[in-house]
């Protein structure tokens, strides 16, 4: 049973090795000429004005949050969907219950209008 996981182990090994080789090569072969401006933030050649942290619309957070929730739902559905014809009715029903619970959540959030981008145009 563990034989199935050896390709994954090899893949992890190659990825790690590649990342390390690239970083080490860059450190050895690349130029190192640090100057104070390379560490400062870029603001079109001028000195930076103000803070980097501004207030953003809350809609961004809503979209990101809901993406995470439904993406994880999809992650759970994928392995089931690959072989669902082999499983019995019980698995099917429990999966449907899972999807229905999240569907109710989706309907609720759509009706609440959390994904609407209410852009108020203020003409003063």
């Amino acid at each position, binding site marked *: 049973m563990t034989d199935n996981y050896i390709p994954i182990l090899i893949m992890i090994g190659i990825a790690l090795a590649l990342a390390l080789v690239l970083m080490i090569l860059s450190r050895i*072969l690349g*130029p*190192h000429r640090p100057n104070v*401006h*390379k560490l400062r933030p*870029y603001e079109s*050649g*001028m000195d930076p004005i103000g803070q980097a942290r501004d207030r953003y619309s809350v809609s961004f957070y809503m979209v990101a949050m809901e993406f995470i929730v439904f993406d994880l739902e999809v992650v759970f559905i994928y392995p089931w969907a690959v072989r669902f014809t082999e499983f019995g009715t019980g698995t099917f029903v429990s999966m449907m219950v899972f999807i229905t619970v999240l569907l109710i959540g989706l309907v609720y959030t759509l009706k609440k209008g959390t994904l609407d981008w209410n852009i108020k145009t203020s003409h003063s």
Partner: protein
Amino acid sequence: MGIESAFGEGFLTTKIDTVVNWARANAMWPMPMGLACCAIEMMAFAGPKYDASRFGSEVMRFSPRQSDLMIVAGWCTYKMSHAVRRIWDQMPDPKWCIAMGACASTGGMHRSYGVVQGVDNFLPVDAYVSGCPPRPEVVLHALMTIQEKVKKEHSVLLDV
């Protein structure tokens, strides 16, 4: 350090140079410093007819942190020269510079108190392109010149 002694003038260095310079020359991402009318010809240089991306300049990176070639296209006033120099300082090494057009090379038609008479007064320029504005093929030729310069004159020994 052991690295310097391993990187003396020898077989290993030239082989590494060949590979690294080939990679750097064929993936030269420009930072367009389009200050004036030469910027239009630079856009043509990047457009489909005189395609710069077939030479490796796949993207015009408008961020200095992600580019290695600055193309100064257009005249640079004294006021703007500080911003251009700051952006040049923010670019990571190794970096090269093309002065595109008559104004960036020598001040061009603007013989005036307010225009820097050539950006080489404050930037280390590698290739000058004459023309007002230069045709996009000439800018491609400048890019090819810089590629030759990288392949022949640049070496890992300069950097370790």
